[in-house]
């Protein structure tokens, strides 16, 4: 678990080095990109979602976090996994859900349940979690 939290640990070290600036400026833990917009798209218009477009901008959130050296925000990998499952790409969906669990062990019960249900579905139909 510690190994997967390296960005957070790095943030801790940075905070310890500059305690005064850290106190006076509100720091963002994450880079959110289009996540809020994508959540809105998927929940407000679930039957009219352009899955390819959502996947594209969510993979950009993952990329930007990595480029910036900050952890991918909570829920983003799982959101990506769900989008892959909508496309019928269950292998990529599984990998994304596993990334969620790896980065955030808090999601273990949830992710294991999703993976079990995906495993129970015939691959050809491209099911949803």
């Amino acid at each position, binding site marked *: 678990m510690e190994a997967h939290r390296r960005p957070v640990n790095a943030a801790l070290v940075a905070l310890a080095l500059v305690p005064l600036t850290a106190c006076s400026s509100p720091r963002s833990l994450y880079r959110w990109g289009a996540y809020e917009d994508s959540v*809105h798209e998927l929940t407000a218009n679930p039957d009219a979602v352009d899955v390819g477009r959502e996947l594209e901008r969510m993979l950009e959130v993952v990329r930007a976090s990595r480029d910036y050296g900050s952890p991918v*925000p*909570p*829920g983003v990998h799982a959101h990506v996994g769900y989008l892959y499952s909508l496309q019928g790409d269950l292998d990529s969906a599984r990998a994304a859900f596993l990334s*969620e669990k790896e980065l955030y062990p*808090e*999601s273990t*019960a*949830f992710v294991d349940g999703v993976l079990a249900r995906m495993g129970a579905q015939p691959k050809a139909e491209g099911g949803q979690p």
Partner: protein
Amino acid sequence: MSSLTSTARALALGVALALVGCASAPPRDDTVFLQHQPRSILVLPPLDHTLEPAACYGALATVTRPLAELGYYVFPVAVVDAMMRQNGLPTSAEMQAVPLAKLNEIFGADAVLYLSVEDWGTSYQVLTAGTTVTLAARLIDTETGLDLWHQSVTVQKASGNGGGGLGGLLVNALATQLSSAVYDPTPEVAREAAHRLFLDPRGGLLRGPLHPEFGQDRK
């Protein structure tokens, strides 16, 4: 000079009053919260107590970010919503009625956030237009059902106050109504409401275990 001094006096009085105001606020009691310190939070789609169809999912999209920035693991709200819909729960009222034990079994969340939207959107009155968002939240411990924290917040943003007497105000209200057809300020006001709901220094939520400064904001 004398006007400067009186300004300074007024300022000093204002500061003094503000301090008194702060001191007289009832101290918050975080005992139950700290006894059941959550690490992960399941956010369910909000109950909509407005007549605006956009309110429920407009509000839902705003809460993950401030909660996660406070140091909590927040379950992926869109995935949770889709899963519940696919399992025969098409409305937020039905989702919020799922027993805690069942939610615990499926998600393993330490706490569940129950939200409601009480106001949403822009209202046009005779003289002015304003956008109001009111959010109410209860954080419930999944194991015990105890209320760990609750808070409600209203954010109101006036628009069309350019002056010019009664006629000017009427024109402004009309102009706002027209321009709002292009630009809807509600999502921005909702983001502000969600931000204040969780981050208000007095009534907000204490930082969670994923925050580097976890524990430093306790009284």
